[in-house]
């Protein structure tokens, strides 16, 4: 009988530890997934926030009212209430310093929806520029970050200039673009297969500077960001880099591989990719049957 009691006690303890609803809530963590946190966004977030000076934006955490209305006991618990650390870098009544909004060290709780196809349709020319008019409108959101990578939007500047109050989804309709998701770490560096490629490159004439959709051929049909890859087919490269009388960069490396199965393709790739078997598409362009490294003598 005593054994059963002990086992039951251990079981209940385990249940309390494992089950989040039975354990004491951790008020230092804020989750939008909590049912009571799923009211309309403007219940807590005000649009625009007071600290948005350059243009109207949401650049700060909600005011204390948003939390105190439900969490009064947690707010006044001890000298350093854990709930304060959701927004404040120091939990002290004498210090108002807050983390950057949103806190870059915390996991993202929302995904962003962006239908490239619809936006390609309505925006045709480069905006906000006095340069020669161009159809390359991707730079509205994707400015150069390095010579290799383009940047992705990190604020609302390229959204609200159209979607402020009239064009749906408007600035107060957060759900129009942001969908609640399982918290995840945002990857800022995209996966690159051909790491040696430079967007601003292409020799003295900078021949890589073209309309983005010349190489990123699937963007104009992409209705969401899910599974969206800037998939550049090999043909986008070989139009110049493997053409009779011009360059033979692909053919040269395939010939080198024929002679040495351990050859690393380096013209476009870093060794992590250059040591793999070339994909069938590369052999197709070279008009040769595909080969695996293990089959090369």
């Amino acid at each position, binding site marked *: 009988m005593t054994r059963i009691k002990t086992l039951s006690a251990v079981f209940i303890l385990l249940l309390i530890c494992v089950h989040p609803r039975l354990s004491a809530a951790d008020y230092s963590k804020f989750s939008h997934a909590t049912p009571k946190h799923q009211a309309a966004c403007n219940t807590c977030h005000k649009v625009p926030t007071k600290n948005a000076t*350059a*243009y*109207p934006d949401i650049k700060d955490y909600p005011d204390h009212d948003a939390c105190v209305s439900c969490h009064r006991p947690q707010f006044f618990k001890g000298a350093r209430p854990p709930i304060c650390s959701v927004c404040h870098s120091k939990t002290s009544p004498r210090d108002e310093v807050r983390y950057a909004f949103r806190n870059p060290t915390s996991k993202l709780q929302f995904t962003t929806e962006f239908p490239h*196809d619809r936006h*390609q*349709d*309505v*925006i*045709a*020319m*480069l*905006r*906000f*520029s*006095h340069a020669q*008019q*161009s*159809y*390359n409108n991707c730079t509205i959101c994707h400015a150069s970050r390095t010579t290799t990578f383009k940047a992705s939007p990190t604020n609302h500047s390229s959204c*609200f*200039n*159209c979607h*402020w*109050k*009239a*064009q749906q989804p408007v600035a107060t309709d957060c759900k129009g673009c942001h969908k609640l998701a399982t918290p995840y770490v945002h990857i800022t560096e995209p996966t690159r297969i051909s790491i040696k490629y430079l967007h601003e490159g292409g020799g003295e004439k900078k021949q890589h500077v073209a*309309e983005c*959709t*010349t190489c990123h*051929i*699937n963007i*104009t*049909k992409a209705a969401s960001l899910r599974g969206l890859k800037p*998939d550049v*087919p090999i*043909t986008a490269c070989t139009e110049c880099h493997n053409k009779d009388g011009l360059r033979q960069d692909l053919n040269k490396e395939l010939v080198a591989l024929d002679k040495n199965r351990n050859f690393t393709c380096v013209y476009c790739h870093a060794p992590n990719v250059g040591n793999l078997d070339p994909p069938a*598409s590369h052999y*197709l*362009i070279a008009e040769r049957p595909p080969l695996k490294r293990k089959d090369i003598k």
Partner: protein
Amino acid sequence: MRAPKLVFFALLLMVTVVLAQSQQPPAKQTGVLRLRVRVKADDSAPLRGLARKRFFLIPGTIEQNRTLIDAIERQTLTSRDCYYQKIGASPALIDWLRAGDCESVYCRGVEPDFVSGPKAVPEFSTAFVASQKEFGNDETARQWLTTNLTPDVRDGFYRARQTVLQTLLKQGGPVVHSVMTDRNGTAYFTDLGPGTYVLSNLIPTELGQTFVTWNCEVQVKPGDLATEKPYLVSNRKDRNVKCVGVEKPKPVCATD
């Protein structure tokens, strides 16, 4: 007693995995269609790439899509100029949209010249003043002035076209592919299952004084690549042109 049971279950698991693997369908071989659209606005004009126009690929033959094609050919559309005249837009706005071949004001940046001065578009000037009051600085006011335009001026024409398009797309079934041409008139349809498709622009394209409609049958074979040979589309016949558009004169704007 336990060991034989474990061996039995392990064997059962292995057989299940092997069976599941053997039943996986072979990797689907898909094709790519490289579209090249070259047009002439009139006989004296040079051939040019048709930039920024959306094309659709509808599974099936022309006969299988007869109802849809009849609906495309029957539609009576208002031209951009007529739409904006009808809503009382200023001639300056109509010219501004025409210069960029724009279906909405989002299509090009509003340069300062078009906000004030001799080239000013009255709708932009009014919206700019409202934006100045709202945003407090001239640069944001200009860049965000579309937020203070009336919905009809802003994108009424685009929305009207989208309504027609969505109705037609419903008839085309769930697997209609669509892409938009780049500045050279090139676009790629990728991940296409082998078979017959109808290439269409669904909504006639305004070209000079005409509306052009394309509805052509296209064959996609497995392994087709986006390589050298594009599928050439035009409004003029030529030996290399695979799909010639049907041109109709644009209707005269109705006067109220």
